[in-house]
């Protein structure tokens, strides 16, 4: 496009921006509406809603001289108009055309975002839309272009081989194989996409909301973080003053001071409450509904079902559960992996399911709920389930485990094997050769979010993945511990329990120290050694304090399937800490998640337990070779 295009006109930038935001919002709801339309084409309100959406895009696109987008939207709109007037005999294959149009609109809008207009070949698509409009549409007669420029897809053909990876796949002619084309199915999912559309609508029209940049909210978060620290300091000082005052009993002076102190305490209580309220109010502004992420899964599952030639019904629950915006952005990919995994490896083919006496239509259930300070997301399928024996066998084959180790594994531990890097599960269900669904990546992503993932599976009945995530990344419940002269914060989500160590509790197995606790053998990690608590500025106090086992405690931590007993000198308290980054230069320090400032202004490190254990495992071997039998600081 030439430079005269309004897209490159400085004066138009605000309009372009608001168009992009509006269009993106519309697309979020539109896809669900289209999928719903496939099931209930006679729903006039729905057709109306879709029509309005497309019309809005058309209007602004025309104004901005976005020729292709407005032409496409116009033709699309005509089809919807005809549907509204019931001039079209709806067949499910038309949904493919509409979804294809939708995909193209998205691509064209993305071009606007990138400020790089590149004409797409819309002819076949426009023809298909025209055909629907004129009543000459025949499933299988048109082939739709792929918006990403790939090979054209056949629509409504009857060959199952034509199931391609690209969006908006084929095979809509036969309603049996299409997941979402059966109007009787998925009432939950249907109602959810209804909600989605409705909500999107009202949001757009609601006069009492304003759009705020996320960076501004982040700034508010930071400021309130400072305020919390200031408050903590204030409370501490007042407590100190009170202690000091109570220690002196100078009668005359005391009376006045005492009443002053009381008033001060009262005032600070007020500040305390207000700060807490403010903090939660600001956190609230960053909360968004998890439905934003869930919303894209009906389409994903529909496409996957076609791709794998399976019948899959997706039900969604709790999509109004809220969590922090930053988390929403991060959980999309892991969830997508898990849903793909369920569709690919979990759900069996219809034939197989029939043989097993199951409903040929498989079920994937996606749900979100709150539990205390956490959000729980579950992805459950009623597919084949995981077979611990197969997993163990594969692990041995891949030399992840020795045979002896494998025998010792419980079923739950065997399930965890699928999170090992390079552990492909393709054979476990068999029929679909997998794209490498990186379950280890899922796990890593979750760990970065301070989240955990659990697997529950019954062979033949299905698998359930349970994700547990904190509501926000900024504030962390932590246990403060002391090692040597230094204080550290251990995130509470990683802590199973804390036990007092008796001298004889620690055994040595092959150079490594372990404790036996609740019938488990847990490796010991001495925090002082792991973190080299003996820095020169500690003034020569060095390590001798923590080699004294008498007063030591072990904090039993578990992150994913890793466990360790972290030996510390003292358990200080449990506290809510505001995580602060160490900055670019120090962000890759292993075992440290960040830092925080305590009430008295002291900076302490917040530990990343999972990383710490991993780091130890990596270095343990090297050390074992190097320091043959001379365990450094554990000598008494």
């Amino acid at each position, binding site marked *: 496009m030439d430079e005269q295009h309004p897209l490159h006109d400085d004066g138009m930038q605000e309009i372009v921006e608001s168009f992009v935001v509006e269009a993106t919002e519309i697309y979020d709801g539109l896809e669900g509406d289209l999928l719903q339309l496939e099931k209930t084409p006679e729903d006039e309100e729905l057709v109306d809603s879709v029509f309005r959406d497309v019309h809005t895009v058309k209007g602004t696109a025309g104004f901005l001289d976005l020729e292709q987008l407005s032409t496409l939207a116009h033709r699309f709109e005509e089809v919807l108009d005809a549907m509204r007037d019931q001039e079209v005999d709806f067949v499910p294959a038309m949904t493919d055309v509409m979804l294809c149009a939708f995909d193209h609109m998205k691509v064209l809008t993305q071009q606007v975002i990138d400020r790089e207009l590149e004409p797409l070949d819309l002819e076949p698509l426009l023809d298909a839309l025209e055909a629907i409009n004129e009543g000459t549409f025949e499933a299988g007669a048109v082939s739709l272009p792929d918006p990403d420029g790939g090979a054209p897809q056949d629509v409504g053909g009857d060959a199952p081989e034509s199931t391609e990876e690209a969006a908006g796949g084929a095979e809509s002619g036969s309603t049996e194989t299409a997941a979402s084309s059966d109007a009787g199915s998925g009432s939950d999912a249907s109602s959810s996409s209804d909600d989605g559309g409705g909500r999107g609508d009202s949001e757009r029209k609601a006069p009492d909301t304003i759009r705020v940049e996320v960076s501004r909210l982040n700034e508010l978060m930071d400021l309130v973080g*400072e305020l919390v620290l200031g408050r903590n300091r204030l409370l501490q000082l007042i407590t100190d003053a009170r202690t000091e005052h109570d220690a002196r009993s100078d009668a005359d002076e005391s009376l006045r001071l005492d009443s002053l102190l009381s008033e001060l305490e009262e005032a600070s209580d007020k500040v305390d409450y207000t700060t807490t309220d403010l903090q939660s109010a600001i956190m609230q502004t960053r909360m968004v509904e998890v439905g934003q992420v869930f919303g894209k899964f009906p389409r994903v599952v529909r496409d996957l079902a076609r791709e794998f030639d399976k019948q899959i019904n997706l039900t969604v629950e709790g999509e109004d559960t809220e969590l922090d915006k930053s988390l929403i952005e991060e959980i999309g990919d892991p969830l997508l992996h898990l849903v793909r995994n369920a569709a690919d490896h979990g759900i069996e083919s219809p034939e197989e399911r029939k043989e097993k006496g199951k409903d040929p239509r498989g079920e994937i259930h996606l749900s979100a709920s709150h539990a205390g300070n956490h959000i729980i997301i579950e992805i459950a399928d009623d597919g084949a389930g995981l077979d611990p024996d197969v997993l163990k066998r594969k692990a041995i084959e891949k030399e992840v485990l020795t045979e002896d180790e494998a025998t010792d594994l419980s079923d739950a531990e065997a399930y965890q094997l699928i999170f090992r890097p390079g552990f492909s599960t393709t054979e476990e269900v068999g029929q679909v050769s997998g794209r490498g669904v990186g379950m280890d990546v899922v796990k890593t992503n979750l760990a970065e979010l301070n989240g955990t993932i659990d697997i529950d599976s019954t062979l033949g009945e299905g698998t359930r993945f349970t994700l547990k995530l904190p509501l926000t990344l900024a504030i962390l419940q932590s246990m403060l511990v002391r090692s040597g002269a230094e204080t550290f914060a251990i995130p509470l989500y990683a802590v199973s329990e804390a036990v007092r160590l008796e001298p004889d509790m620690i055994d040595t197995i092959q150079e490594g120290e372990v404790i036996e606790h609740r019938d488990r053998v847990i490796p010991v990690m001495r925090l002082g050694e*792991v973190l*080299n608590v003996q820095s020169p500025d500690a003034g020569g106090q060095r390590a001798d304090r923590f080699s004294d086992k008498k007063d030591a405690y072990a904090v039993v931590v578990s992150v994913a399937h890793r466990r360790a007993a972290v030996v510390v000198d003292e358990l200080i308290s449990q506290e809510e800490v505001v995580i602060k980054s160490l*900055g670019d*230069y*120090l962000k890759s*320090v292993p*075992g440290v998640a960040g830092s925080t*400032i305590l009430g008295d202004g002291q*900076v302490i490190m917040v530990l990343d337990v999972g990383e710490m254990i991993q780091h130890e495992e990596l270095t343990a071997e090297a050390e074992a070779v190097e320091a043959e039998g001379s365990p450094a600081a554990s000598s008494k």
Partner: protein
Amino acid sequence: MRDPDSQTEDVRQFVSFIVAEEEFGVDILTVQEIIRPVEITRVPHAPDFVEGVINLRGRILPIIDLRTRLGFPERDQDEDTRILVVELEDQTVGFITDSVREVLRVEESTIEPAPDLATNIDTHFLRGVAKLEERLLILLDLDGIFSKEEEEALQGMEGEEESDAPAAQGAAA
């Protein structure tokens, strides 16, 4: 001294400070403030030249000991020790110096590029040497404070652990 009112464009101002008896200068525009030593929290597994972090009015700043960084022997802090808070390209960092002296005006023309072998200081962050009337001022470009090796050391910390001493000093020497 030069005329303090000379406002020609090629006069630059530098904050001068002492590390191990040598006088250094950094561009005053990069200096945010100068503070007295405060309690430094060690960062486990951080490279040797990173002393730790401090709390500067609610912000976390990494602290780098210029003695260690420049390859001089370590020394305990004393009355004169100051932390120079400098804004680098991508973050604010505190540098421990033996003492901070004054603000100097230096004409651009008196600045010469750093001689390759003149000092035992890594040339990565040497900006040049200014000839003052009776002495030399070594001008530092602290943005280069992390050389390639150190950035690698920062990235590659996963591998090594107990042996955090040699890497940084080797690079500085």
